[in-house]
């Protein structure tokens, strides 16, 4: 059971790679897929390692990704709609 998860809005991404580089547990990688503007958005390659620290969200210049902590029952903590 991972401690956290990330939510990615692929259409906002400009493919700068900050989230991939600065993720402390190396959860992300840039995918081969394109978004509508032709950039490669990141995708999750190691979901079990995510700690929900939201450092990817702090670095993202385009507000396209953020991390959040998960509770024991798998529900998101503090960021529900």
């Amino acid at each position, binding site marked *: 059971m991972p401690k956290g*998860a*990330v*939510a*990615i809005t692929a*259409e*906002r991404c*400009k*493919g*700068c*790679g*900050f989230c991939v*580089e*600065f993720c402390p547990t190396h959860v992300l990688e840039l995918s081969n897929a394109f978004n509508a503007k032709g*950039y490669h958005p990141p995708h999750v390659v190691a*979901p079990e390692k995510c700690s929900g620290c939201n*450092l990817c*969200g*702090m*670095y*993202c*210049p*385009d*507000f396209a990704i*953020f991390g*959040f902590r998960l509770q024991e029952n*798998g*529900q*998101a903590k*503090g*960021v*529900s*709609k």
Partner: protein
Amino acid sequence: MSTTDLQVHNPVEDLLRQDRIPTIWCPGCGIGTTVNSFAHALLKQDIDLNKTAIVSGIGCSGRVSGYMNLDSFHTTHGRAIPFATGLKLANPELNVIVYSGDGDLAAIGGNHLIHAARRNIDILVVCINNMIYAMTGGQAAATTPSGSLSTTSPYGSYEPELNLVQLVDAAGASFVARWTAYHVMQLERTLEKALKKKGFRFIEVLSPCPTYYQRKNNMGDALQAMLDYKKRSKIKHGCPTWETAIVPGGDIIVGEFVDREREDYLTRMRKQLGPHYSEFPPQWDEQESMGCSKEC
């Protein structure tokens, strides 16, 4: 597990105008990263967001006022601080934040910056320093390190650069700090601290400009610039500001340099003018109750 099943929502989005996003900033521009830190700092504060106004000038960083869901003011080039001063003096209850770039605040509006710091007006100035006039096409700015290539200095800039931190400290600001776009958590904490303080507060944030500064000077892309900031920056809190000049290839001294107590402009004005002075003109109904309107 799919994140769409969880129905989650980024807390920063409450402070952004959703209809304006995606932003116009280039891929890898550091301004968006600093906006994240700023939004997190605002969310952690108890300040009333209805009494918070953000003012910015012209330039890439000037777009921030349009993207933040606060009362905002997009002003003429270089004149963000005069507009913010007027806003603060007309309505002293407001928290006024100036969010603009180095070309706007330090070159075209350089005198306003010096005199706002001298008067110690109660505003927070966040200056995004990307070391170039980015929006107008990459001309050499006052903060461009000497020897750098730009559109207007194809053989390298001959001019020595301006150290904004030293300038503002010498002019008498009550809080001076410098971070880079790499230091997101530290920037957030400094912004939280600065939002609580009174007086003229100045935070310089170095940010990569991959399109004009990094590309022209063969410094790689934005990610390379961020890794460069990570490698070159040295945190020295309370460092004398004359030792903080940014030398190309040398150390970047970051931290909170100045934190002094000094009376701000409004306090000095109220003290000198005494209790009989009111900043607000008498209201219309007050005049009526004095019997003025009947006789006139």
